[in-house]
């Protein structure tokens, strides 16, 4: 093969140009959710029990978070061949549709449609806060206490103390914990086994891998252990990200497996503030071309933004922990983000949407 000097130079120029392109593209990462545009979504959940084994019940979470700054529940409607009633958790106000079918019903089915309005959240933590924005003593105590899956004593407290050592303000403490989650959580194949499902066992085993219900629960527990109110917000992604993040949005109108919990922290002077360190790790793992470096511009942008902001392409169900489902023979559940069911006294597998047979679809209605 013969390459003359002129062609070689051309190829060299082209090569330089192509090599520069990704850099230019990366510099354009724009991830700046900002409140101002409300969007309305309709979310439909259809649930069927394929092989009922006697008396069958189901509990379907309904959007029940109402905060005037970013989300409003516009109600739910349902049809079913069972007996349905709206139920509400007495401690957290989490709403659910409780449906019961008699043993003779061979094809239990329920379809629920909920509507919500939501918008982006963002708070500028570099501006001085308003000291009059504070949480009452009772609410502060409630949101710093431990739960079944989120103990705040023992190894959780020790870990939290180590992370926040040397920090002074609430913002510094929460930011230190947020950074710790982003830096330290991942799945390590060398770690033996799993925890037993709570954050203390995650820390004891050193297996800090997991999804949002693990990572953001760990974040919430460490923040609570530092004496700062925090809570998980359980919900589901309802639309693609308009900032181009494939990993941070619903891929299609079918959102059956798009459940995602975020986290809020209460910062004196600012109120409940949006955070989502688990989504930073999701960008690292899943954002194309996947397995991004921690200093990749898309990761860096998510890391910066998701401390204080999140995009309104997600619907909150509730902020509840340790719920007892009305009429259930089972134990309390750690959180209610998936439809739950039992048939003939046996718990159905809530994350196996194919066997349990449910489908969730989302549709944007109009701009509010």
């Amino acid at each position, binding site marked *: 093969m013969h390459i003359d000097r002129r062609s070689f130079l051309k190829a060299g120029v082209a090569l330089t140009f192509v090599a520069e392109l990704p850099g230019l593209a990366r510099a354009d990462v724009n991830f700046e959710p900002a409140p101002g545009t409300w969007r309305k979504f309709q979310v439909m959940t259809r649930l069927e029990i394929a092989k009922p084994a006697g008396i069958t019940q189901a509990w379907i979470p309904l959007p029940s978070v109402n905060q005037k700054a970013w989300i409003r529940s516009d109600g739910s409607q349902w049809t079913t061949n069972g007996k349905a009633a709206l139920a509400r958790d007495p401690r957290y106000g989490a709403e659910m549709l409780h449906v019961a079918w008699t043993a003779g019903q061979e094809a239990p089915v329920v379809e629920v449609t909920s509507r919500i309005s939501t918008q982006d959240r963002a708070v500028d933590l570099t501006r001085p806060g308003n000291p009059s924005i504070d949480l009452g003593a009772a609410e502060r105590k409630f949101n710093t206490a431990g739960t*079944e899956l989120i103990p705040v004593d023992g190894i959780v407290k020790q870990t939290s103390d180590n992370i926040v050592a040397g920090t002074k303000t609430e913002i510094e403490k929460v930011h230190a914990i947020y950074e710790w989650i982003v830096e330290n959580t991942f799945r390590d194949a*060398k*770690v*033996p*086994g*799993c*925890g*037993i*499902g*709570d954050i*203390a*066992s995650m820390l*004891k*085993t050193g*297996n800090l891998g997991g999804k949002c219900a693990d990572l953001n629960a760990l974040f919430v527990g460490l923040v609570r252990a530092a004496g700062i109110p925090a809570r998980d917000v359980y919900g589901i992604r309802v639309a693609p990200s308009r900032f181009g993040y494939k990993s941070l949005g619903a891929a299609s109108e079918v959102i059956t497996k798009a459940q995602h919990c975020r986290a809020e922290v209460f910062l004196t002077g600012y109120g409940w503030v949006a955070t989502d360190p688990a989504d930073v790790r999701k960008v690292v793992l899943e954002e194309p071309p996947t397995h991004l470096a921690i200093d990749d511009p898309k990761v860096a942008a998510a890391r910066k933004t998701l401390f204080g902001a999140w995009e309104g392409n997600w619907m909150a169900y509730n902020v509840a922990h340790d719920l007892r489902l009305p009429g259930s023979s*089972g*134990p*309390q559940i750690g959180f209610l983000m998936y439809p739950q069911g*039992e048939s003939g006294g*046996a*718990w*159905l*597998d*809530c994350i*196996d949407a194919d*066997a349990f047979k449910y489908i969730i679809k989302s549709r944007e209605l109009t701009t509010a």
Partner: protein
Amino acid sequence: MHFFATWCESCREELPLLNRLEARANGKVTVLAIAVADADRSVQRFLAATPVDFAVLLDRDRTVAKAWRVAALPTTFVLDADLRPKLVVEADYAWDTFDPGKLTGPSPMDAGERATIKNANSR
């Protein structure tokens, strides 16, 4: 006493090994498995695909795991005939390479020590 979960990846291969261990022990070892924080139907489906001869109990709310101070899954406690702990294995383990006679012989913990296996790469 074998604590496991169907949602725990490193647990799933170990149950058939424990089943074979119990068979090799000719009635001198009894395995009792405890599914931690698992849905009933998940355990049933798992056991339909991977049948075992020993009893599998459901610890739906982690009460038993907490009482036994289990932090990692899988964890196996070997008890002697008087239900005193002989061995604790805090990892998945290659039970096919293990002589069940060692479990029924003199206890390595008779000297007062708690024998523990933590090596995850033991299989």
